[in-house]
């Protein structure tokens, strides 16, 4: 309808297009909603951990109420030392989730430039990929554990450990994407018009990579959450009595034979919800990208 010289055609087209446009926008909103919900869950958890008034002090045990089942006072029960499980589950969020995110951020900062370089045509890129392969053959989770064990229970060490686990996959992913984009017509055209290799890489290839990086970051964060929980579970990454989901599960596992399931189950559910939120974000961004590409 912007073109006044063909009023009939454009009106016709508009009428025909309308249902499609409506359906597509609805679809897009549906997918965007998944991403928004995922982000809202994560933000809600972190903000609740930071600012919400907790019913009990997460690091002050009440020796008078040990191992109580969920009730109106302690909605998730209390653990063997008399800590309120609900307060500790909420309090952990602001430490555990940012750790997973921080790990991903560092992995991107290291992995993406290396992946771009490895997507080049130079001879040595093959060598770099072999090195990445050897590195991936390493039991990375054990490596992460060694790092945190040796360098101490500080957040930056956990983030470093996560980065080591995740960097190889960002390198491989970005390289794969760069190699496939390199084959496309517009890159060929850019090279034919005399663009330098650097210009081709940064102006024509790089802008096409972020989508897949976004999807992968969300997946890596989900995986990072599990790694953080694993570290905490074996007693690394958080000094007691600081609350951390993995450590709470470990602590709760000793009360399982007595039937006190709540100490371990609620922090486990918190991990579950967080990972689902990250996955929701990844899946929906992927769908939005697929629509965009079509």
């Amino acid at each position, binding site marked *: 309808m912007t073109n006044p010289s063909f009023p009939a055609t454009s009106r016709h087209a508009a009428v025909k297009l309308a249902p499609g446009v409506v359906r597509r926008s609805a679809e897009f909103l549906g997918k965007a909603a998944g991403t928004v919900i995922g982000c809202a869950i994560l933000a809600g958890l972190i903000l609740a951990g930071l600012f919400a008034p907790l019913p009990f002090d997460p690091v002050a045990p009440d020796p008078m109420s040990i191992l109580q089942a969920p009730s109106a006072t302690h909605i998730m029960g209390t653990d063997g030392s008399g800590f309120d499980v609900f307060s500790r589950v909420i309090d952990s969020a602001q430490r555990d989730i940012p750790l997973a995110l921080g790990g991903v951020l560092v992995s991107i900062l290291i992995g993406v430039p290396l992946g771009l370089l490895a997507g080049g045509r130079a001879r040595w890129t093959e060598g770099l990929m072999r090195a990445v392969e050897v590195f991936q053959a390493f039991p*990375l*989770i054990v490596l992460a554990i*060694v790092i945190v*064990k*040796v360098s101490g229970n500080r957040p930056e060490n956990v983030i470093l450990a996560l980065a080591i686990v995740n960097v190889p996959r960002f390198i491989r992913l970005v390289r794969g994407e760069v190699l496939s984009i390199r084959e496309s017509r517009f890159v060929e055209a850019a090279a034919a018009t005399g663009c330098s290799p650097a210009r081709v890489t940064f102006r024509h290839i790089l802008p096409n990579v972020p989508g897949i990086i976004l999807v992968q970051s969300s997946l890596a964060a989900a995986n990072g959450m599990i790694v953080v929980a694993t570290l905490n579970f074996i007693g690394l990454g958080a000094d007691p009595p600081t609350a951390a989901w993995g450590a709470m599960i470990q602590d709760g596992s000793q009360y399982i034979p007595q039937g006190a399931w709540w100490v*371990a189950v609620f922090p486990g559910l918190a991990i579950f919800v967080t990972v689902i939120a990250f996955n929701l974000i990844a899946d929906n961004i992927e769908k939005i990208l697929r629509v965009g590409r079509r």
Partner: protein
Amino acid sequence: MRSTLTYALKRLLLVPFMLFLIATLSFLLLALIPGDPAVLIVGEFADQETLARVRADLGLDRPFWEQYLTYLAAVAQADLGQSYLTGTPVMEEIGQRLPNSLVIIIPSLLMAVVVGTVVGTAGGYFRRGPVGKVTSVLISAAQGVPPFFLAIVLIYLLVFTIRMFPVPTGMLYSSMRPPPEVTGVVPLDALLAGQWSVLGAITAHAILPVIATGLFLASYFAKTVRTSVTQAMATPQVEFARACGLPERQVVRYALLTARTSVLTYTAVLFGVMLSATAVVEVVFSWPGIGAWALDGVLKGDLPIIQGFIVVTGGLVIIAYVVLDVLVAALDPRIRH
């Protein structure tokens, strides 16, 4: 066939080199770790003389590059040193514990492959329908449950609530006498002695850890299969197969044929992940496997154990990758050239 052989040879020639890299990396990494092994062995209150003697015994007083060369020479002869704390040769311990871990790793890998392939294929084929939605929810949910957490939930429900499985205290019932020692590997010894009750006990104890690790890995596997099946369903050859009027079952079979390369690749990757991923589950079930042992070594700072574990699992993974690459090349002519 010839090109496959050349390719296989090329890859095989790289193996020693990669093993060398792994050994070097693990040496460097652990050499950078602060702390004095001598103190770990004789304790903090030992006098200087004893400490110096222990250091000399370990070769820690020699220059760095000499230690490195000694280490490489030893690894080349399959000597991974002795545990600082117990004095047992690392290689011997690995030989006894690795098979125990495989009792869990191989069935859960199989479970991951079977469940993952079925769920992933269904999810990829019916991507737009309700089946696709359900599978995608299932996959997301399974990814959100860390294996050690699933293990604890299973123990609570199936061991302590309905008492269907034995209490998770290792491979055998506490009242059971281990089979006569021949190889030192309990499942193998039981087999040699023909003690079926022992084998039965091992199986009963292994089911829950297998489910706990298998389900988590199946979710990742399903995701990979779903992606490759979705891609395969969009290829011209599937369109052609349909145009030829082939039944849908046949079409799916061809789509899976295209997808099998990435599926195989992922199986090898998973094998690598599992070697260390089972560690925590082994701890939860007190399973006498290599992962739980390595984890204990890490937490106690027992360097030879950590180094030995890294070298052996890294080596196994590299061999798995090479076998896989050759297999993929044999199946897919595009790779060979």
